[in-house]
C-alpha cells in the first residue's frame, strides 16, 4: 500500500524530514507519535502534495505508483485523504456543496458515474447522523465559525463521504471532547477494511484505545526512530520522548 523510503523534505530550504522510511500495508493502521515540531504534519502535507514542501531525496508511492509526481487532486482521486490538523474555513461554500463538488471531481477523474443528487443527500444524512452532526451545519459556509471539535468532525464527515483508500489523520483527536472522540473514532473504524490503509498521527493513547493500531512509530527530528506494536504507545505515555529525542 503506502511505501515511503529515505524521504527528505525541506521547507524554504530548511530540512525538516530527514531520511524517513515507512511502510503501511493494506488493511493496517499505523500510528505515528512524536514530540512537537518533529515533522509529523510536514509528512502528512508532503504526502498530500502541498506546494512549498520540497522533496530533495527519497520516494513515496501508493500501490507502486509514485505519489510525488502527482498533483494534490490526482492524489485525492487515487484515494489519498488527509484529515487536517487545522482545517480551513471556506466562506460562502456550504459543506454540502463542497463535498458534492469534491465527490463529483473524484468520480470524474476516475471515470466513474456521478452520484445522483438524491443518493448523495441520503448518504450525507446517514454520515452526518453517524457523527451526530446537525444537517443545518452543512448548509453554512464550510467550517466558518465552527468550534475546533466541530471542524474535526467535518473532516471525518468528508472522509466518510469520499471513501478514500488511504487515510491520514493528523491529530484528529485534538479539540474533541470525550463523547466526540468516541463518535469520531467509530466513524474512522467504519472505514477500516482489508483494502484500506491508515496513518494516525496523535499525541495521546486515548485515541488509540478506540482506533487500535497494528504498528506504532516514533517520529523524532524528521525520521522514524523506533517502531513497535501497540504497547509502544503505552510506553511513550509513561516515559515520554526523552530517550528518543536524545537518540535523534
Amino acid at each position, binding site marked *: 500500500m503506502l511505501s515511503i523510503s529515505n524521504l527528505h523534505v525541506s521547507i524554504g530550504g530548511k530540512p525538516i524530514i530527514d531520511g524517513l522510511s515507512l511502510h503501511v500495508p493494506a488493511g493496517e493502521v499505523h500510528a505515528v507519535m512524536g514530540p512537537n515540531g518533529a515533522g509529523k504534519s510536514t509528512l502528512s502535507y508532503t504526502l*498530500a502534495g502541498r506546494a512549498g514542501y520540497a522533496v530533495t531525496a527519497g520516494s513515496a508511492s501508493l500501490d507502486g505508483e509514485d505519489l510525488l509526481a502527482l*498533483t494534490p*487532486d490526482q492524489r*485525492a482521486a487515487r484515494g489519498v485523504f488527509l484529515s487536517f490538523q487545522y482545517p480551513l474555513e471556506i466562506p460562502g461554500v456550504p459543506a454540502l456543496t463542497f463535498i458534492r463538488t469534491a*465527490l463529483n471531481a*473524484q468520480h470524474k477523474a476516475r471515470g466513474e458515474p456521478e452520484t445522483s443528487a438524491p443518493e448523495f443527500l441520503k448518504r450525507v444524512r446517514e454520515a452526518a447522523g453517524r457523527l451526530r452532526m446537525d444537517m443545518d451545519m452543512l448548509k453554512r459556509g464550510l467550517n466558518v465559525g465552527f468550534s475546533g471539535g466541530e471542524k474535526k468532525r467535518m473532516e471525518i464527515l468528508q472522509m466518510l463521504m469520499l471513501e478514500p483508500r488511504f487515510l491520514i489523520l493528523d491529530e484528529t483527536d485534538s479539540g474533541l471532547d470525550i463523547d466526540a472522540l468516541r463518535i469520531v473514532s467509530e466513524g474512522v473504524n467504519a472505514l477500516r477494511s482489508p483494502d484500506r490503509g491508515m496513518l494516525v498521527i496523535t499525541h495521546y493513547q486515548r485515541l488509540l484505545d478506540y482506533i487500535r493500531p497494528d504498528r506504532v512509530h516514533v517520529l523524532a527530528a524528521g525520521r522514524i526512530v523506533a517502531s513497535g506494536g501497540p504497547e509502544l504507545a503505552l510506553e511513550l505515555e509513561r516515559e515520554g520522548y526523552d530517550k528518543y529525542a536524545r537518540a535523534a
Partner: protein
Amino acid sequence: MAALQDTIDTVEALAGGERYKHGFVTDLEQEFAPKGLSEDIVRFISAKKNEPEWMLEWRLDAYRRWLAMDEPDWAKVDFPKIDYQDAYYYAAPKEKVGPKSLDEVDPELLRTYEKLGIPLREQAVLAGVEGAPRIAVDAVFDSVSVATTFRAELAKSGVIFCPISEALRDHPDLVRKYLATVVPTTDNYFACLNSAVFSDGSFVYIPPGVRCPMELSTYFRINASGTGQFERTLIIADKGSYVSYLEGCTAPMRDENQLHAAVVELVALEDAEIKYSTVQNWYPGDPETGRGGIYNFVTKRADCRGDRSKVSWTQVETGSAITWKYPSCILRGEGSQGEFYSIAITNGRQQADTGTKMIHLGANTRSRIIAKGISAGRSTSTYRGLVSAHPKALGARNFTQCDSLLIGKDCAAHTVPYVEARNAHCTFEHEATTTRLSDDQLFYCQSRGLDAEAAVALLVNGFVRDVLQQLPMEFAVEAQKLVAVSLEGSVG
C-alpha cells in the same frame, strides 16, 4: 509547480484553447450608415427608424450639445483616445421592412442566438420541462432589435415589451413623458452621445397593480466590425406593479476596441418594484496583449419616484476591456428603497471602474450596497460609490459592504467611497475588506480532489455567494459558470 501548470493547460485545452466562448462572428449581409458622426448620420438613424419629427429634433439637440462637451477622465481606467469619426453608428442585418414573426427572421440569426443559448422560440421554451420558467426575450443585434418574444401574451396583462424604436411609433406619449427624465441628455459625455445616436434597446411599461407574469430580458449582441453599440432602455413600473428584467451581452473577438455606450432609465412609481439584473460578458480583449475588447461606458439610473417604491440592481460584470458604470438610484419617494448587488471580475488586462450612487432625497429612504470585486492577472478593479442624503432625507439609512479578492500578485483593487450626509438624522454604515486568495484554502480544496481551476472557481463562487443569490434562479447557475470561465488561467 510544473504539475499544476500541466493541469491548467489541460483544462484550457479542454475548453477549446479559447477562454471566451462567444467570440464567433455571424456572417450575414448587413447594412451600415456611412462611417463617422455628423448631423447627417443622426438624421440617417432617425429616418431608418421612421421616427416622429420631435424625436429627430431631440437627437439633433443632443448631438449639438455633445459637440461642446469634453470626454471625462476621472475614472481609474486608461485607454488611448477614441476617434469618434472612425466608427459606424448604425449596422443592421438586411431585411424586408416592417414588423415580422419569428418565421421571417433570418435563420442565420436564429442560429446565432441558439449558439448563445438564448431562447427565441416560444414553443421551444413552452415544450421544455414542466414548470420551467418562461422568459420573454428582446434580441438586439448591433443596432436593431431582431425579435421580441411573448409579446402577445404579455399584452393580455397590459404589459408593453417592445423595441424602443417601435415604442416611439406606437406609444409616443409614454416615451415622451419619461425619456431622459432620469438621465438628462447632457448628464454626461457618453449619455449625451447616446441620446444623439442610440439605435435600439427595449421599452417596458407595466400598468398599475400588475405583476409582470414572466421574466423580461434583452440580449445585446455586437456583431459587425468597426461599429459602436448605443442602446437605450426605458422601463416604467406604474403604481403598485412589479417587474424583473435581465440583460445579457456578448460580442465577437476582434483586435479593435468597440464602444458600447448605453443609457438605461428606470422609473418606479408609488409602491412599484423593479429588479434589474445584468450579466455582462462583452469580449474582454486578449488576456496577454490587451488587444481588442469592448469599452463598456454605460449610464444606468433608476428614479424611485413614488413613495415606497423599490429598485434593485444586480450586476455580474465579467467581460469588456474597460467597464465604466455606476447603476444608481435616486430615492425621491418617501420610504423608497434602492439596492445594488455587484460582482465585478477582471482578469488578463481588463480594467473596471464600477459602483453605484444612492441619492437619498426623501424621508426614511433606505439603500443597501454589496459589491464584490475580484481581480486576477494584470487587471485593475475599482469600486467607486457615492451615498448622499439631502436635507429632507431625514431617517435615511445606508449599508455598504465592499469586498475585494485578489488572485495573484500583479492585479490591483481600489475602493473609493464618497459619503455626504446633509442632515443629522441619517445612518450610514460602511464595511470594506480586501483579501488575497489563500494558497492554504486552495490546497485544502485540491486535497479533496478539485483541480487548481475548479478550486479557484469554488472559492470565488463562495466569495460572491451573497450577490449570486440575488439573481433570478435560472440565471444564477449561468452566472456561476461564467465566474469560473472568466477566471480560467488565473492561477499557476
